[in-house]
């Protein structure tokens, strides 16, 4: 099994090295004439006002949290799906229960308006 990951390891080295190589070549070939106007933040020609790092709405966090819950539960279901053919009816009942709890969470988030984007 580890030999397969040997291939993945070499792939990882190349997948990282190739874009780095591209940037190095571009750095060698490209002109370098920086000036303050060119390097100013792009805001349609208007001077930037205030700090870039403004506070964000809690809404993003809420979506991310609902995502985390669904992501974790789905990942748990993958080994179940692989083994499902070798399992009896109880596996169906248990997974159905699992999915229904997930569904309840979705319905709750929906009813509370956590899924509305304002």
């Amino acid at each position, binding site marked *: 099994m*580890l030999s397969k990951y040997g291939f993945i390891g070499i792939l990882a080295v190349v997948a990282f090295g190739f874009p780095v190589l591209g940037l190095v070549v571009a750095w060698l070939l490209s002109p370098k004439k920086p000036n303050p106007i060119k390097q100013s933040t792009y805001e349609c020609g208007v001077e930037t006002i205030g700090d870039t790092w403004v506070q964000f709405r809690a809404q993003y966090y809420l979506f991310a949290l609902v995502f985390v819950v669904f992501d974790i539960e789905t990942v748990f279901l993958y080994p179940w799906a692989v083994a499902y053919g070798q399992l009896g009816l109880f596996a169906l009942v248990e997974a159905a229960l699992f999915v229904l709890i997930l569904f309840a969470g979705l319905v709750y988030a929906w009813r509370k308006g956590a899924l509305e984007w304002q």
Partner: protein
Amino acid sequence: MLLPILFIFFSIAVLGFALLVVTTRNMFHAALFLVGALFGVAALYILLEAEFLAVVQILIYVGAIATLIVFAIMLSRNMMRRDIRAANDQWVEGAVAAVLLFALLVLVLSRASWPTVTAAAPPDAIPGIGKALVSDYVIPFEVASVLLLVGMVGAIIIARERE
């Protein structure tokens, strides 16, 4: 021959990233270093031939938890100031507690009798994991889903209250 070298390489990477997480003065960088450490742990799992754990490590910790942490940092206005102090007045007490905990862990780990498995890992362990989840570990499996649900409900209540 190759495996010990890789193990040492990834272990050093994990420890190095972990050290950077607690020493950097920039919260966003700390989150990125944390991602690096989590990747190193995933690589260690692969060396242990626990590929499912490795992929879950990346999916959940990098894909979900780390993103959540970055979002949380962005939501806290003061944390986004570029330089904040990494330590506060309690750092001495914190260091003492950490050293004591470390000593305790070393003590326990060195005394524990580790079961050794001589058989090779099965070529495909995933059906086994799936079976275990719905037979031996069915209660934790279902409780985990309830726990996640409760966490989500709590977060929604807190977020809604503020508005």
